[in-house]
C-alpha cells in the first residue's frame, strides 16, 4: 500500500524535487511507526491471551501460587511456583557463574592473545557452537555427562561437603549440578562470541595509552579492555542467562523433576519452570494448562527483572562507558 510511494521517493527523480523527498520521508515514517505499533499490539494480544488462560487456574488454586512447593493442578488443584522458580534461578545462576569467566577468557584469548590464524579458526568454531540446537547439548548431557559427572561430584561432596551447595547424603548424575554444567556449556559460545566482538571494539588508542605507561599485556587488558568491554559482557551474560532460564529440553532431559527447595545441587533433585512445562503440558487438564501458562508468565517476569537489574548496573556507570569519547 505504501510501498510504491517509498520506491518513488528513493528514485533519482524524487531526490531532486523537495516535495517528493518529503513524501518519501513521510511514507517511511508511517511505515516505521506502523511496524512498531503492530509489534506492540501483537505482544499485548499474546500477554492478554496468556493472562486470560491463566486466571481461571489461579482462581481454582487451593494453595498459594507464590509460596506453595507442590505442583498438582490436575488432581488436588494445589500448585505453587516456589520450587520451580527456585530451580530455574539457581540452575541458571550457577550456569552463569561457570560460563562467564570461561567465556571471557576464551574471548580475550581470541581477541588479544591468539595468533591471527588461530584466532580466526577459533572464532569460527565458537560461532558454530553457538548455533548448535539445545537438544543436542541435552542428549550429550544425558548420554555422556550424567554417567561421567558422579566422579567429580563425589570429589566435591567428599572434600567440599562443608559448603552447603555441595552437601548431601549421596550424589547423583541427574542433579542440578549436571543441569547447570549443561546450561553453562550451552550459553558459553554466545557469551564468548559477543564478548570477543566487544573486546575487538576497544579503540587502539586506549590500548596504546596503557602500553605506553608500561603496562604488560595483561595489565593493558585490565586497564583498557575489560573496563571498556564491561557493559557488553554484562549484556552478553544477560542474554546467556535468559537462554539458560528459558532452556527447556536439555534441562527436562536431565533433571529428575522433583518438587522441593534445596541447595544441595549434587543430589538427585531439581526442576525448572520450563522443564516442568515440557514435562506436563501433554497430559494437563484445562486447569493444569492454565497453571503451566501462569508459570510461564512468572518465568517471563523473572527474565524481565534480571534484565532490568543488568540495565541498571550498566546505566549506573554510563558516563564512564566510553560511548561519548
Amino acid at each position, binding site marked *: 500500500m505504501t510501498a510504491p510511494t517509498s520506491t518513488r521517493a528513493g528514485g533519482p527523480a524524487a531526490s531532486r524535487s523537495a516535495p517528493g523527498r518529503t513524501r518519501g520521508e513521510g511514507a517511511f515514517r508511517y511505515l516505521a511507526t506502523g511496524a512498531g505499533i503492530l509489534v506492540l499490539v501483537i505482544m499485548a494480544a499474546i500477554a492478554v491471551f496468556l493472562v486470560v488462560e491463566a486466571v481461571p487456574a489461579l482462581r481454582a488454586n487451593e494453595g498459594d501460587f507464590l509460596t506453595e512447593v507442590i505442583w498438582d493442578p490436575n488432581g488436588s488443584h494445589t500448585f505453587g511456583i516456589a520450587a520451580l522458580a527456585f530451580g530455574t534461578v539457581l540452575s541458571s545462576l550457577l550456569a552463569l557463574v561457570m560460563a562467564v569467566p570461561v567465556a571471557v577468557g576464551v574471548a580475550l584469548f581470541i581477541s588479544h592473545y591468539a595468533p*591471527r590464524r588461530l584466532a580466526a579458526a577459533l572464532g569460527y568454531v565458537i560461532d558454530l557452537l553457538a548455533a548448535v540446537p539445545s537438544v543436542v547439548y541435552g542428549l550429550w548431557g544425558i548420554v555422556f555427562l550424567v554417567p561421567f559427572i558422579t566422579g567429580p561430584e563425589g570429589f566435591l561432596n567428599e572434600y567440599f561437603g562443608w559448603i552447603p551447595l555441595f552437601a548431601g547424603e549421596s550424589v547423583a548424575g541427574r542433579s542440578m549440578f549436571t543441569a547447570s554444567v549443561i546450561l553453562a556449556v550451552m550459553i558459553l559460545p554466545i557469551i564468548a562470541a559477543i564478548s570477543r566482538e566487544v573486546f575487538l571494539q576497544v*579503540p587502539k*588508542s*586506549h590500548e*596504546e*595509552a*596503557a*602500553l*605506553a*605507561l*608500561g*603496562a*604488560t599485556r595483561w*595489565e593493558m587488558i585490565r*586497564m*583498557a579492555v575489560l*573496563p*571498556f568491554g*564491561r557493559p557488553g559482557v554484562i549484556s552478553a551474560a544477560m542474554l546467556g542467562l535468559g537462554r539458560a532460564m528459558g532452556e527447556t529440553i536439555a534441562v527436562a532431559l536431565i533433571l529428575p523433576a522433583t518438587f522441593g527447595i534445596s541447595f544441595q545441587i549434587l543430589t538427585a533433585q531439581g526442576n525448572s519452570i520450563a522443564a516442568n512445562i515440557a514435562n506436563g503440558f501433554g497430559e494437563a487438564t484445562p486447569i493444569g494448562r492454565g497453571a503451566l501458562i501462569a508459570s510461564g508468565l512468572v518465568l517471563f517476569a523473572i527474565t524481565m527483572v534480571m534484565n532490568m537489574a543488568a540495565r541498571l548496573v550498566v546505566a549506573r*556507570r554510563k*558516563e*564512564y*562507558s*566510553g*560511548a*561519548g*569519547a
Partner: protein
Amino acid sequence: MSKQITVSGLDAYYGSHKAIEDVSMTIEPRSVTAFIGPSGCGKSTFLRTLNRMHEVIPGARVEGKVLLDGVDLYGSGVEPVSVRRSIGMVFQRPNPFPTMSIYENVAAGLRLNRRMPRSQTDEVVEESLRGANLWNEVKDRLNKPGAGLSGGQQQRLCIARAIAVKPQVLLMDEPCSALDPISTLAIEDLITKLKQEYTIVIVTHNMQQAARISDRTAFFNLAAQGQPGKVIEMDVTTRMFTSPSEKATEDYITGRFG
C-alpha cells in the same frame, strides 16, 4: 631524572615496508627536540621506536641502536615494559581512559608498578596535575570522568598521566594538532616548563610551534613516495630556521616545498 638519547643507524619496518632508514641523532636532556617534515616521512614511526611502542604493531620491527644514557633499549634482556615506564608518551589525539575518573586516569600508571598508600597516591596525583597546569581546573571534580573535559584539558590530563610515573623522557606526537589555539598555547607553556625536568621530544607539523618551543630541530624527509624517510638535517632550532644548510630544509621551512 632526565637522560640523553643517542640513536645510531636505526631502520624501522612495517612488515617488508621500510618506513625510516639509517637515522642517527643525539637528543639532549633538559631540552626540547622537535621533529618536523612532511606527513608520511616517518616522524611518528621514529618517535615510537624511542620507547619501543613501534613493535606493538603486528609485523613491525626495528634495527639499529637506541641508547638511553648508554644503555641500549633494544639490547637483549631489556624489557619493553620497563623501557616504556621510563620513556613516557603523549599521543596525537587525547586518549584518557574513558572508563576512569580524572583521578584514576592520573593514577593509572602508578597502580601498575607498586602498591602505593592512598595518601601518597593523592600527593602524586595532585603534583602531576599541577605539573600539567591542570590542577586548578579539575581539583573540584577529580572523581568525574576524564572524558568529560575539553580536548585541551584531556591532553593535559594525558600529560599528567604520563609524568605521574616520573619518566626520564617524554615523547609527544603532534600533541596540539587536535586542539584550538588557546589550548595549544597552554600546552606549549607546559612544555617549556616541563623541559626543566625532562628530556622532551615533540613531533609537530607546525613550524612556528617548533620555532617557539624547541631547542633543537630535526627535519625528516623522503626521497619519493614509498621510499623510507630519513633525517635530512638536525641543528639548533634558531640556526635551522635562519640558515639551514640543506636546500630541502630551506624549501620546507619557507613553504616552497614539493
